[in-house]
Every structure is written in structure tokens, then in C-alpha cells.
């Protein structure tokens, strides 16, 4: 407990988070499969993956909510199993599912939290005021949370997660269900927090744009395993220079057709063919000619730089939204607590 607080952050080489062969099984099902990574102090680290990838389970283990089946994890030099309390003191967490008391006001929710973390009264009141102002809720601070919109609740939860000034902040899908404007606002805020207070942030998301904009490094996680881990830039570069997307009535044929060595990879999905290649502008005429010569139609064709979406597709063979993500997401927003 004293180890990390005794030495200033800049001279402390201990990583904020050190995960080693972490595994979580539920019965025979392996939800998190032997993952290892290390997060530096002051980093914003993203866990990007589809529904059920194991993001929340990973966060739960790192935040002492669930015990790992095997492997170890250290937060600020403290073991999540052996030094639960020290870990709890140094982390803040915004859960994926709502975790506010709706029968209390926003201020009371904050105050309850501040007292749990034993923040002295004076400091507590001051910080609550500041944080509520920061998330734009100071006008509504004495309203019951049950009268809040989803976005307001989310902002309140984020403010609450920061109240005790954690060294490491976990954000589990922080912008899920928020409108684009609020989402943007929160992104800016998260980035600022990280910059000004040096808080290490680990966030999970299945929004590519969120991961791309915020995270210093991104781990793509699928079926409980880390598929690839790097900066967004490197991830995009790793899959080849350009992306050509072709819509066609017969995508199978196209996929079988393009076997030239300059095609780094080719995936097809939902009637779309996605081709990764270097110097697309030089090869497009060849592609189009080849397709036409084989009597296949092209509905549309576009060329662009790769996005994280392409990276994801490349490494997992699926788009992140496959498998009814949107439906589940909508369900989740109807807070699971409602009506039990």
C-alpha cells in the first residue's frame, strides 16, 4: 500500500497494470483465456472486442470483483487476489451496467461513495462540487437519480468513479448507449483526465472509433484471448496499405478470382469483398478488368485507408457487429434492473 504512494509516479517503474496468464473459467467454458499484457502508468489502454469476448470478465478480475481461475494480475504493484484492499484503494471503476442508487439524489450518491472511500468531509464536498460541474450535472445535483436520463446517469457514474482520485480507472463501455454528442464530450473529458491527472485508464469498448481516438494501445480480444495488441496506427499498418471494398452479387467468385501476389489478404462478408493490398491505385484497373472478364457484376467499389474495423475483420475473420450486437446493446440499455 505504501510502496506506490511513497514514490512519485514519474520515478516509479512499476507498471500500472501487469497481467500474467490470466484465465477465468465458468465450469467448462473459458471466458478469459490465458491473457498477458502490461500497461504503463498514464497510458490509455483499450480492450476492443465483440459481445462475449471476455472484456467485462477481465475487468472484473482486475478490479477484485471476480477471482481469477489461474494466472496473476498486479495493479500498482499489488496483487489482485492477495492484496485486495490495496488494489481497491487505488482503483476506480465505471461498470458496464448501471450501479447507482436511484432513490438517492446525485449528490447523495456521490457523498455515499466519498464516505465509503473515507474522504474527509471538507475535501469530499469540494470534490463532489467540482466533479458534478465537470460532468455538467451541478444544476441537477439534488434531483433523484431515477429522474435522470441514461446519459446523465453515465456521466454521474464517471464522476463517481473519479471522486477518490484513483490511480487506475476502469471504464467498462463508458459511452454505451450515449448519443454522439455526449459521447464526444465524454471522450474529450476522458482524454483530459488522463493528461492532466496522469490517471491510467483501461477501457473496454466495441466502438472502433472510440478505441481509435482515445487509446494509446489497443488489445483486440476475441473468445477470451488477445488476438493482437498494438497502437491503433501500427494495427492499421500491419494489415497492409489500402482497403478495396467491392459489393457484388457473387462475392464468392471474386474472392476465388483474386489470387495475385500483391493481394495481402481477402475477406468476404455479407455480400462484401474486402481486399487488403499495397498501392491500391495501381491495381484497381487490373481488379476491375479481371472481374469483368469473368462475367461477374460489380455493384460498387471503394478504396480507402484501413480502419480498426478492417483490423478487427482481418484478425478475427468477423466484423465486430456480427452476432446481434445491436440487439443486445439495446436490451442492455433497458437497464437490467428494471422489473428484475
Amino acid at each position: 500500500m505504501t510502496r506506490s504512494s511513497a514514490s512519485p509516479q514519474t520515478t516509479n517503474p512499476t507498471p500500472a497494470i501487469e497481467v500474467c496468464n490470466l484465465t477465468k473459467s465458468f465450469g467448462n467454458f473459458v471466458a478469459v483465456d490465458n491473457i498477458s499484457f502490461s500497461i504503463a502508468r498514464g497510458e490509455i489502454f483499450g480492450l476492443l472486442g465483440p459481445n462475449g469476448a471476455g472484456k467485462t470478465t477481465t475487468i472484473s478480475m482486475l478490479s477484485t470483483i471476480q477471482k481469477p481461475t489461474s494466472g496473476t494480475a498486479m495493479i500498482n504493484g499489488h496483487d489482485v487476489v492477495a492484496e485486495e484492499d490495496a488494489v481497491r484503494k487505488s482503483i476506480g471503476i465505471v461498470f458496464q451496467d448501471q450501479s447507482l442508487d436511484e432513490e438517492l439524489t446525485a449528490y447523495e450518491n456521490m457523498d455515499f461513495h466519498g464516505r465509503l472511500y473515507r474522504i474527509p468531509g471538507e475535501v469530499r464536498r469540494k470534490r463532489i462540487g467540482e466533479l458534478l460541474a465537470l460532468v455538467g450535472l451541478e444544476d441537477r445535483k439534488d434531483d433523484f437519480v431515477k429522474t435522470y436520463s441514461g446519459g446523465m446517469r453515465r456521466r454521474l457514474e464517471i464522476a463517481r468513479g473519479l471522486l477518490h482520485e484513483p490511480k487506475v480507472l476502469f471504464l467498462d463501455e463508458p459511452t454505451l448507449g450515449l448519443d454522439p454528442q455526449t459521447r464526444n464530450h465524454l471522450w474529450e473529458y476522458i482524454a483530459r483526465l488522463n493528461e492532466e491527472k496522469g490517471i491510467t485508464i483501461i477501457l473496454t469498448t466495441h466502438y472502433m472509433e472510440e478505441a481509435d481516438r482515445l487509446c494509446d494501445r489497443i488489445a483486440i480480444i476475441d473468445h477470451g484471448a488477445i488476438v493482437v495488441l498494438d497502437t491503433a496506427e501500427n494495427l492499421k499498418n500491419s494489415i497492409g496499405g489500402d482497403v478495396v471494398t467491392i459489393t457484388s452479387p457473387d462475392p464468392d467468385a471474386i474472392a476465388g478470382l483474386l489470387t495475385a501476389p500483391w493481394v495481402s489478404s481477402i475477406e468476404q462478408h455479407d455480400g462484401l469483398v474486402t481486399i487488403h493490398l499495397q498501392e491500391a491505385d495501381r491495381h484497381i484497373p487490373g481488379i476491375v478488368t479481371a472481374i469483368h472478364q469473368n462475367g461477374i457484376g460489380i455493384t460498387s467499389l471503394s478504396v480507402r485507408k484501413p480502419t480498426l474495423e478492417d483490423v478487427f475483420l482481418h484478425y478475427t475473420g468477423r466484423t465486430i457487429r456480427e452476432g446481434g450486437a445491436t440487439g443486445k446493446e439495446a436490451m442492455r440499455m433497458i437497464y437490467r434492473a428494471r422489473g428484475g
Partner: protein
Amino acid sequence: MDIVYTIWLRSVKRYLRSKSRIIGSLGMPLFLMLVLGFGLDSVVQIPGMEEGYMDFIIPGIVAMSVLFTSVFSGIQIIWDKQFGFLKATLVAPVSRLEIMIGQTLGGATAAVIQGLILMVLVLLIGLHPVSIAGFLIAVGFMALIGVTFTALGIAIASRMEDMHGFQLIMNFIVFVIFGLSGALFPIDGLPDYIRPLTLADPLTYGVEGIRYGLSGIAQVHPFTCLAVMASCAVLMIVVGAYLFRKIQS
């Protein structure tokens, strides 16, 4: 202590704000009191008590109100679980024992307030006045009932996934704990096969304790009542704390 106070405060705030619950749960006890009390007042003669049946059951009805409120308060942890609030509490650097004690005291406080509201109403209806000392004794026993059964509620809630078993448990509490207690009938007149059950029911001692406070007459010695209720309170806190330690959010 700060943590216990924090949890207690929230619990009491929530209770005081649930106006419909406070008023709603006065209905049943008042109904019972009016129907049984006035209805049987002239018919039933309690041996060793000059007052009528009405005066006899008032402590029992007060105990019932405390019992229901406290079990309900304890079980409310399931809602905290479902609303995710419990998770946020458990991830804080506080011990589960502190959380459990705070919750128990909060539930017990709510239960005593509920019992007091009922007592005031009863005074308006026409219970004969009691001495300050007697009143305090009654409140003390109400507090012990409150602690015991809030802790029981927490123990049950710690083992329950959701509200599905809730009705079953409430029925058990009503029929077994309340029904067997000496709330509505004198222990002395019981047949031999029920008497041991009534004497094994902790609520019996709570009711008798309140009865001693309010009317000065009890069939169980008040010290026995105190010893039994205090032991039950401690025991239930231990059991509740043990089960709560293993609660999965």
C-alpha cells in the same frame, strides 16, 4: 464506524422516503388489530389479565410490524444486487462486515420507526398509557427484533439470486415465525404439541418482552426474554455476516 454510519444512513434515508411502503405496511397490522381486537375483545378472556384481548394483542401486532419491516429491509439487498449498486459498494475498500452491520442497523432502525408509528396510532385508538420505563423496555425489544430479523433477511438475501423466492420466504416468515409466536394467543393455554414450537420461536420472546413493557404482565420472565432475544440478535448477525461475506454481486 464511519462506514457503518454511511450504510446505515442510506438505508434509513431510503426507508423514510418510501412513504407508500410506510403507510402501506400499516394497513395489515391495523386491520388485524381492529378485527381481532374489537371483534374478540368481549369474547376472549386472557387468564391473569384484567384487560381485554385488545390490550393483549397490541404488543403482538407491534412486534409483527417490526418483524415484517426488518425482514423486508434485509432482503432489500437483492434489489441492490439487481440494480448493480451492491457491486459498487463491494468494490470499495471496506470490509463486508462493516457493510453488513450498517445494513442491519439501518433495517432495525427502520423497523423500530415503523413499530413506533403503529404504537402512536394505537395510543390514539385507545391503548391505556404506559410508563416511560415500560415504553423504553418495549422499544428495546423492538430494536432486538429488528436486528435479529434484518440480519435474517440479509442472510437469506445473500443466498438468493433474484426475487423469485421472495414470496415463499415472506409466507414462511408470516406463517411460521409470526404465527407460532405468542403474538395472538397466550402461551399458557397452548396444547402440548404446539407449546414447544412457540417456545422455540425467537419472536415469542420479543413479543413477551414488548408485552411486559407495555402492560407489565408477561408469561415469560423479562430477563429470559432479554437473554433469548439478545442471543438471537448476536447469532443472526454472525450467520448473516458469514453468508454476506460470500455474496456474489
